[in-house]
């Protein structure tokens, strides 16, 4: 057994996290920053943070992930990291020529108390920031929240530094896509574009972290929201923010700063959440939903109805980020599946009650924990086995030990490639999720069926 020391008996733990279902803020900030065109994320802390984040993002995307680091030494830890950051800004603009440096802090610099706003001001004073270039930042202490918080903070940073209002409102909607994959961001843009709506989406990691092989490496790929567009977000008629945790903060900040009102919605994973997203866009923009989207919706619903017998009553254990889990749980419940064990590592008060609400008609007790970990999830599974696991690659250890099929979803996925290219968001994404779930369940049925009930038609 790969996880041979995980006992059935759940003992309460107050201090020890085992097999976390989250990671720390800075990686989320780095990911978000990669969604700005010609932006180099910068990690203000020890080299190791930057190396770890780059490695993990690289393994997840199988793509180059570039970022600078302030390379703290013991000295910087004592005297503060200002000198390091000033030097870094100077070097980065000279060597790599980004348009933006997006600094995020680390537990180290936060514990020290470096004032990044002041350091950036100093850099500007010292002419270390060339004309037309930008340094922005977000405070992302690793000991608060999780990678999702870091993402949210960096997106807020984009608003803080760029969004500007001159009183005029243009017929355009801002979309904050949430902590989702590049392919999802692309899909969100496509949906809005199919509806004929003018949008600015930020951040936008499509064509940054799912870029083509061309034989030519470019440190700054074509993708990402431009600075010009980030500035213009302050003049949009409204903001649709997807995922309360990842996107709500920036949306509210933009409202406060530039009086751009916002709707904060669930991530459009599954039929109903996508319905709400599209209906909101429709109403805000005053457009009709085009046939193309109605057809996509109908196709998803077709699979939900045609294959209902395979979904009904199948139990699932889920781990992931709160925004994703909320919509995913709703989606599973909508096809009459029973998600019965759900953990996220990301703390937050509303998560558990929201999940309880969504699963209230599930005819089975539901375990949910916001500050859970995969060790706890595994213990729950040992006590009440499930038909399916949905979560990141670390779940494969549970999957193998307990002989339960796994649908890979969330972050990080280190051992497969589909998440890089195919959205799980929107109706098409829903189709993909259902295909994956069906493949997992049916492969298992094929494997376990006695010969006499091995099915040709399913």
């Amino acid at each position, binding site marked *: *057994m*790969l*996880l*041979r*020391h995980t006992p059935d008996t759940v*003992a309460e*733990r*107050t*201090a*020890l*996290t*085992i*097999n*976390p279902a989250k*990671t*720390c803020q800075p990686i989320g900030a780095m990911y978000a920053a990669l969604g700005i065109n010609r932006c180099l994320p910068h990690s203000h*802390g020890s080299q*190791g943070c930057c*190396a*770890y*984040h*780059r*490695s*993990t993002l*690289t*393994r997840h995307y*199988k793509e180059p*992930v*570039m970022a*600078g*680091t*302030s*390379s*703290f*030494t*013991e000295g*910087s*830890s004592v005297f503060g990291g200002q000198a390091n*950051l000033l*030097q870094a800004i*100077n*070097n*980065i603009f*000279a*060597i790599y020529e980004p348009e933006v440096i997006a600094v995020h802090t680390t*537990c*180290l610099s936060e*514990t020290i108390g470096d004032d990044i706003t002041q350091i950036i001001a100093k850099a500007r004073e010292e002419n270390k920031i060339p004309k037309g270039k930008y340094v922005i930042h977000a405070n992302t*202490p690793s*000991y*608060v929240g*999780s990678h999702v918080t870091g993402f949210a903070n960096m997106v807020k940073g984009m608003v803080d530094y760029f969004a500007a209002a001159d009183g005029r409102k243009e017929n355009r909607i801002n979309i904050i896509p949430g902590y989702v994959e590049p392919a999802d961001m692309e899909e969100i843009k496509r949906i809005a574009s199919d509806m004929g709506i003018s949008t600015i989406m930020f951040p936008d990691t499509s064509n940054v972290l799912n*870029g083509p*092989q061309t*034989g*030519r*490496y470019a*440190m700054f790929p074509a993708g990402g929201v431009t600075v010009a567009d980030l500035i213009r977000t302050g003049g949009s008629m409204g903001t649709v923010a997807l995922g309360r945790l990842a996107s709500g903060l920036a949306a509210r900040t933009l409202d406060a700063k530039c009086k751009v009102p916002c709707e904060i919605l669930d991530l459009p994973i599954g039929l109903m959440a996508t319905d709400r997203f599209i209906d909101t866009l429709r109403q805000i923009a005053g457009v009709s939903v085009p046939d193309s989207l109605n057809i996509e919706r109908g196709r998803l619903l077709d699979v939900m109805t045609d294959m209902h017998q395979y979904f009904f009553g199948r139990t699932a254990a889920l781990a992931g980020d709160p925004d994703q889990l909320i919509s995913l749980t709703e989606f599973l419940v909508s096809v009459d599946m029973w998600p019965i064990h759900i953990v996220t590592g990301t703390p937050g008060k509303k998560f558990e009650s929201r999940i309880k609400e969504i699963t209230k008609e599930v005819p089975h007790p539901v375990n949910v924990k916001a500050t859970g970990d995969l*060790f706890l999830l595994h213990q729950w599974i040992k006590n009440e086995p499930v038909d399916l696991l949905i979560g990141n690659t*670390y779940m494969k250890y549970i999957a193998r030990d307990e002989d339960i099929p796994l649908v890979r979803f969330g972050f990080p996925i280190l051992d497969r490639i589909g998440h890089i290219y195919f959205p799980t968001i929107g109706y098409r994404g829903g189709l993909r999720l259902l295909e994956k779930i069906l493949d997992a369940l049916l492969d298992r049925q094929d494997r376990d069926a006695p010969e006499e009930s091995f099915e040709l038609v399913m």
Partner: protein
Amino acid sequence: MSEVLDTISPKPSALQPMAVKKELLERYPTKVARKRARQIIINEVGPDCSVPEIQSNVRTIPGIITQRGCTYAGCKGVVLGPTRDIVNITHGPIGCGFYSWLTRRNQTKPNGPTDHNFMTYCFSTDMQDEQIIFGGEKKLRQAIQEAYDILKPKAIAIFSTCPVGLIGDDVHAVAREMKEKLGINVFAFSCEGYKGVSQSAGHHIANNGIFTHVVGLDDTVSEGKFKINLLGEYNIGGDAFEIERLFKDCGLTLISTFSGNSSYDYFTNSHTADLNLIMCHRSINYVAEMMETKFGIPWIKINFIGASATAKSLRKIAAYFEDAELAARVEEVIAREMPAVEEVRAEVKTRCAGKRAMLFVGGSRAHHYQELFREIGMEIVSAGYEFAHRDDYEGRRVLPNIKVDADSRNIEELHVEPDPNRYKVRISPEQIDRLEKTGLRLKDYDGMMAEMPNGTLVIDDISQFETEKLIEIFRPDIVCAGIKEKYAIQKSGTPMKQLHSYDTGGPYAAFKGAINFYREIDRMVNSKVWKYLKAPWQEHPELAATYVWE
């Protein structure tokens, strides 16, 4: 080689190392360029194997995109990570524990279904702002208690991350207290990420800790005539399994490996061995030195990467023990293994000879893997380490001349003395003389540069910018580095092989490993997939004025 790359030959400047160096430096700000100039060296091996000085083990300049990680990574990730039965608790926010969870492909094989194996687990105190403000000792103490209650391990190790030092948690005091309370071995490492200039500091801290708290706890003497420890072999992709197989076949008794397929018990007993073999000089020479001082165990540098290197290393061991039967068995094993190696080597060489490789990685692999490339006729155009010291480049002869800077001085040098009871002389001065005459020097390592051709570029702590430039200039057929570098290199149309984790390959050690590596490189540099970089319309963008229907 693929058609596309064939048409892109190295720039003329590639033939002039000074010009290359200039090109690498020209975009840097003056201060950066000045510093980097001392870390980018054109190799020149003197008649006495002297080589130019290379600046290394110095700070990376902020803002430079570096390969390097931190002290925690070197301590917890590299040295302690591969041991299966110690519960490694990361004390700090969640990230550090998360990122070092199962990502290094250190394989381990418990001795049975009930044997402890915690390598698949990640343990962390998941420090919150409350601990940053009020201190984390209480939570750490409780975490250790919970780990003990659930897992009942023999040993628990604590690894400090950046904020721990700053907020003043005394992890060692907590360790002592819990050791006493629980009656198992509990020990801590002050391996905060900001210490030192790279992972290297972490290796040193790990060496110190394991030597202080573990080595020598069990004096049981094992059976076996030729007892050895293997140091600095991390069993990436199963390398250690392959070496273990060879040792067994040769009749050598492996007491412990630091640290690959390793167990706490092996460490406690490792001082009973009669010879230490060092694979990765950089990460583990400290333990070897201290074991020699305290217990009298000599060490030799060996290398099991490359078929001839493996044969040579086995012969060195046999020579050390001066035992005819052992020598005969070693020769038998070599004779048994080499034909298969030779066969594949010869076949692969027809397709790989003359192709160009670069290696920028680690503290020993950039050196060791050159051997394998040479065996299939490939040329190394440039190489360098990520976190090595001058002795790894220039050989231990320069040790006395290495200036200890502030960053290194921060890492404790343990004061070790011969153990009054357990120090045992393994080898007489006469024998040492005898061995030296046959060319076997104890405690010696010549470093990488002595084995590299004149004019090749040796680059310490290479930056992303320099990597890109080098590829543009040399158009190598393959580059070896780590995961962070991988896809930028591949996007340039150049296959890239990870030498930290081997991507998903391995083992590459010893004879069978050499075969695996030859085949892997053959696959990579001769793959069809690199032929398709250009679409037909990029190759032939012209449009006929009117399309001619067939």
